[in-house]
């Protein structure tokens, strides 16, 4: 457990030090890592601890980014817009959770994907409010790219830290214990007196709130959002893949997964734009067959012994 915290702090401090040791490209990369870490940590509440295969991440990101952008364009200041966007997202998630958490497994997965699609379609057709398919411009921050880059990096890092602290609390609390019980056997958890419905809705809302904040910050950072990017079905898949890559249901796994994934994305397949999706697909296939428990579950001693054994033979 203390190892996880040390590892997290190491990543966190490295990311926070980026503006002082490297140029804007790396600051941007660090912002992406912080952003995806926050998203992966969020998904972990519902997907990792509770075991519900949610693919609604993009719905919350999109909702948060549109709420943030619209509020900001209405003249509300940056941070207040972010906070309100998060509040709107959590309220939406609570209602949505009440509705779709009644179904399990496949039906839940399909339902959560459908939510992303519905929100995207509504956003595309409601042009008077959301700008429709043309998207929405958000005011670019004043103070030059260096300053703005730092502001958004630290904003994302704040969300990441909050998500991590919440994860620590959930992991150690009675609430988290209840969620893990639901993952193992929902009926049994219900039987021993856990209020399953409330627990699930709480986990689902927790998994939404930071996505909403992240989305709002992202909208202000990029300065432009469109339905296809905000409610991207690709993002909704990428985030669970990151968690699976790191190790689901663990504290540090999501951060590790996001870190490895973003670095891989930047260093390897940014050079193969044509085959971008195919490489992501291959990574998924590799992950499922060869790393079923994620990077954290690799047994290094066994692996080393194997390598030595090969060399010895």
């Amino acid at each position: 457990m203390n190892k996880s915290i040390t590892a997290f702090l190491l990543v966190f401090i490295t990311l926070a030090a980026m503006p002082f040791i490297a140029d804007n490209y790396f600051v941007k990369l660090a912002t992406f890592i912080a952003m995806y870490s926050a998203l992966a940590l969020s998904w972990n509440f519902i997907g990792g601890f509770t075991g519900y295969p949610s693919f609604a991440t993009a719905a919350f990101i999109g909702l948060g980014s549109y709420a943030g952008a619209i509020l900001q364009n209405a003249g509300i200041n940056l941070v207040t817009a972010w906070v309100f966007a998060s509040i709107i997202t959590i309220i939406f998630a609570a209602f949505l959770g009440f509705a779709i958490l009644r179904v399990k497994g496949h039906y839940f997965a399909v339902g959560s994907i459908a939510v992303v699609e519905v929100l995207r379609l509504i956003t595309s057709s409601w042009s008077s409010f959301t700008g429709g398919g043309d998207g929405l411009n958000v005011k670019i921050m004043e103070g030059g790219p260096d300053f703005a880059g730092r502001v958004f990096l630290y904003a994302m890092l704040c969300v990441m830290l909050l998500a991590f602290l919440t994860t620590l609390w959930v992991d150690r609390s009675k609430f988290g214990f209840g969620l893990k019980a639901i993952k193992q056997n929902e009926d049994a958890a219900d039987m021993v007196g856990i209020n399953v419905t409330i627990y699930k809705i709480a986990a689902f809302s927790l998994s939404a709130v930071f996505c909403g904040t992240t989305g709002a910050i992202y909208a202000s950072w990029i300065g432009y959002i469109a339905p296809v990017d905000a409610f991207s079905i690709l993002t909704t898949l990428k985030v669970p893949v990151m968690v699976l890559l790191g190790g689901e249901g663990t504290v540090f796994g999501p951060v590790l997964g996001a870190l490895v994934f973003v670095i891989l994305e930047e260093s390897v397949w940014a050079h193969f734009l044509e085959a971008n999706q195919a490489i992501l697909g291959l990574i998924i296939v590799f992950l499922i067959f060869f790393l079923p428990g994620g990077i954290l579950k690799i047994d290094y001693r066994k692996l080393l012994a194997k390598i030595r054994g090969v060399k010895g033979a």
Partner: protein
Amino acid sequence: MLQALANGLMLGGLYACIAVGFSLVWGVLNIINMMHGSLIIFAGYVTYFIWYGTKLSPIVLLLPVIIALFIFGYLLQYLVINRVVKRPVLTTLTLTFGLDMILYNFMNSFFEATPRRISLNWGSFTIADIVLPIDRLVAMALAFILTFVLYLLLRTSKVGRAIVAVRMDRDAASLMGIQIPQIYAITFGLGAAMAGACGVLFAVAFPVTTNISGLLLGKAFVICVIGGLGSVPGALIGGLALGLIESFGSHWFGPQNAITIGFILMLILLMVRPTGLLGVKGYE
């Protein structure tokens, strides 16, 4: 109104064909096949290019495409997906999603996303002010026939009975001497074959482009939830229902909202009756 009804029925036939393979795989293997939409488009593109090159009638191409996709699906399930088939939905869904991305990317770079349609110029005829394009009518009729053939296959053949048995109770079926991995592979192959058939018919009736593979997949979701899983009649009813809903929806609320109505209906049904209209309990 009558035109909307006719359009709805024609769409519904194709939709039933889209969903029946997807529903079979979901019901029997407990896998959500995210590749289904891309398989349809893939078959549509291949048929288009063969038709374009050789001017062979797409109806002649139907059988070879079905066989090719059956083999593809069989091998994919036998060699790849069977290894994780018992794992939780998150794993299997992510895996088929990953495979879908590979196929999608492949199609985008080889076929490009230009919409292609097999234009047969068969004309159309009119009864009481309802315009009925003949190519779409033929596509609908073939879709119904193929769906019925699959139904007969499941009802009467030995393999079909084995598939149904596995769906009902895997362990009991295994004890009766049914080779589960083999049946899984055949089922997935049948699902892919139906997708292939659907792709051929789709290319005759509508333009195909890679961009709509996600849309087709979404329709398969909706139809399965409306009709219930794993049964041919369920997919048929669900498909016809969705065809009519979209057709009347675009008549009343405008075409841009037709798809949204389908999805919202599905979400409501998920809450109220997750087993579908014709579904059996226990597939939740």
